[in-house]
């Protein structure tokens, strides 16, 4: 990693051209460029409009069910015998994950811009479900692009999207996962520019998406600050979240970036291991340009993009949001990784000890607790972003556990 001078604040980015240091930018085809500029303008206006915020706050409270609780994970805390572990319960939001925070904002923007047709890409299907949900609520047409492999491994979410009236389009190109779904969504957008809003699910893509999605997700960290103040009378000591594109992590981290005393850990998916197939773009990638932004990417020596692998469809992407790439270079966020196997073990542990079935994505964050929590004192306050619930993953977890089965010994 390059050595970069530390800024006075970590929270002022991006610059007006969408750059976080060398990362970010607007690397898109000319057909899309006027739309992206229009979106940037519309978002700036909405952000400055108190009525927009008021309406959004109302939906977040009454429809999404926010604030999501910050709850003490008592038995896990006891299990590790160190830091006091709190869960930020994004799994309890309507639709079962943090994704809805961002989708609500973008769909309100789509309405404001007069776009009747919404497209989205999805990996695990949580962003697709959230988009289908909000489009149903507000009466917009919804088309979700999903890699054919993900369609197979996340069937419950495919059915949910269909029940909500969305059209799910399986993508057969490339590795048939999230990267390919995003390519196909971009192709649709180029074709249907005049009436279509592209609702991106993570803090990636061309400017202003990484900034806008981050802003909509920051409610996670803002609530956590207030809730921790109320529970413990102070800020947490450390934060940990899983990172694929990184929207749940950015939402939790961003409001704490300038609190230098707060340690921040991002956990990438190490798949079969960092020396084999994985999805850890900071650990195993380098800066390149894909899907509208410059960021860490998994690629071959000649710049061809590598197919990622993770057991978790939501992390199965060869890139990461550009702001995360910047924070990784600055060292403000420490990057760790967890393998498929470690995530599966964490899935069982959390389900059995806390009565919470987590999505495989946050299991990657849970998997690193064993390294961090035990060495900390009992008054060390550690927050895990429990970004989604695991119902969607039961089939694939059962398959991977094989003979031992879901009810087997830990």
């Amino acid at each position, binding site marked *: 990693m390059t050595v970069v001078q530390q800024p006075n604040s970590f929270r002022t980015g991006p610059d007006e051209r969408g750059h976080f240091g060398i990362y970010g930018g607007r690397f898109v*085809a000319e*057909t899309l460029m006027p739309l992206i500029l229009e979106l940037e303008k519309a978002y700036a206006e909405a952000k400055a409009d108190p009525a927009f915020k008021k309406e959004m706050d109302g939906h977040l409270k009454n429809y999404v069910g926010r604030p999501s609780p910050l709850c003490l994970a008592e038995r896990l805390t006891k299990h590790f015998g160190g830091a006091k572990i709190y869960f930020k319960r994004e799994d309890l939001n309507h639709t079962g994950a943090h994704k809805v925070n961002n989708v609500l904002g973008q769909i309100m923007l789509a309405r404001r811009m007069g776009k009747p047709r919404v497209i989205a890409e999805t990996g695990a299907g949580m962003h697709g479900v959230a988009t289908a949900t909000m489009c149903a609520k507000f009466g917009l047409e919804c088309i979700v692009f999903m890699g054919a492999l993900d369609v197979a491994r996340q069937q419950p979410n495919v059915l949910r999207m269909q029940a909500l009236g969305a059209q799910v389009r399986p993508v057969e190109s*490339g590795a048939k996962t999230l990267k390919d779904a995003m390519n196909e969504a971009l*192709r649709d957008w180029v074709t249907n520019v*005049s009436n279509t809003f592209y609702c991106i699910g993570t803090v990636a893509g061309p400017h202003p998406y990484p900034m806008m999605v981050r802003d909509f997700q920051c409610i996670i960290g803002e609530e956590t600050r207030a809730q921790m103040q109320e529970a413990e009378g102070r800020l947490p000591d450390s934060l940990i979240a899983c990172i694929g594109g990184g929207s749940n992590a950015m939402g939790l981290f961003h409001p704490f970036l300038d609190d230098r005393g707060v340690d921040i850990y991002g956990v990438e998916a190490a798949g079969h291991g960092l020396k084999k197939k994985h999805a850890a773009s900071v650990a195993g990638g380098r800066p390149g*340009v894909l899907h509208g932004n410059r960021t860490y990417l998994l690629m071959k020596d000649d*710049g061809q993009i590598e197919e990622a692998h993770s057991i978790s469809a939501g992390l199965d992407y060869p890139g990461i949001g550009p702001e995360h790439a910047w924070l990784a270079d600055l060292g403000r966020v420490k990057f760790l990784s967890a393998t498929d196997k470690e995530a599966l073990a964490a899935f069982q542990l959390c389900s059995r000890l806390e009565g919470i079935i987590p999505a495989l994505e946050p299991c990657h964050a849970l998997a690193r607790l064993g390294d961090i929590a035990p060495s900390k004192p009992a008054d060390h306050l550690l927050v895990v972003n429990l970004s989604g619930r695991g119902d969607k993953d039961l089939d694939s977890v059962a398959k991977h556990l094989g003979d031992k089965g879901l009810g087997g010994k830990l």
Partner: protein
Amino acid sequence: MTTRIDQRFADLKREGRAALVTYTMAGDPDTRTSLEILKALPKAGADVIELGMPFTDPMADGPAIQAGGLRALNAGQTMIKTLGMVRAFRKGDSATPIVLMGYYNPIYIYGVMKFLADAKAAGVDGLIVVDLPPEEDEELCIPALKAGLNFIRLATPTTDDRRLPAVLANTSGFVYYVSITGITGSAAPDADKVHAAVTRIKRHTRLPVAVGFGVRTAKQARAIAQGAEGVAVGSALVNAVKDSLDRKGKATARTVKAVAVLVAELARGVRGAKHKSP
């Protein structure tokens, strides 16, 4: 500075006809066959050659060019081999302009300055890089112009009069008008709309305007050529390669000929147009 591209369009203007711009994917279905195709293009009637640099994630391309790129990559095509093809082509042809077309990441990873030097030395005349709008001109466009390469920009139906000057500012060689909002090889363009758009662009620039995306047949090429200085055909030629392959996806004796025959047909279309310089 007059480049091969400037020269070619100037010559064709004197002839009173539009240019046939042909796209072929470097390394499809393998480097050797691809070089044979490249060499066959001028004789078949191509005036300007776009040589595709394959990329795993071609976001602006339709199924034909996506598949062509993957065939090339699976056969082991790399940027070094693509530049090698241009060098080999130049040994027998010093007049036909070659424009490399593709996406930014393989160039960025090759190293911008090294890429520009190597491309120029190989005999490349211009670049079309789909995911570099004028907002990112510092990345490659400005260095390319300094290195003596043309940087050809795409203008699209969404590029309005207010935006056109920014799009044209650092464009050289020619302007590539994308005739539809969409990906390559999809809907067929409407010739009347295209002529109106070309006329609109010509109000802002003296550069030649070539039109592409969705042109497949000699008849379409003729219609487009009546109101533009160039007609670009890509997916149809890449499909001609595909249709000539054996069941294992390997080149056959028909492969080069299939492309040459289609190019000759398109060339007759372009040459048969009653060209009114727009």
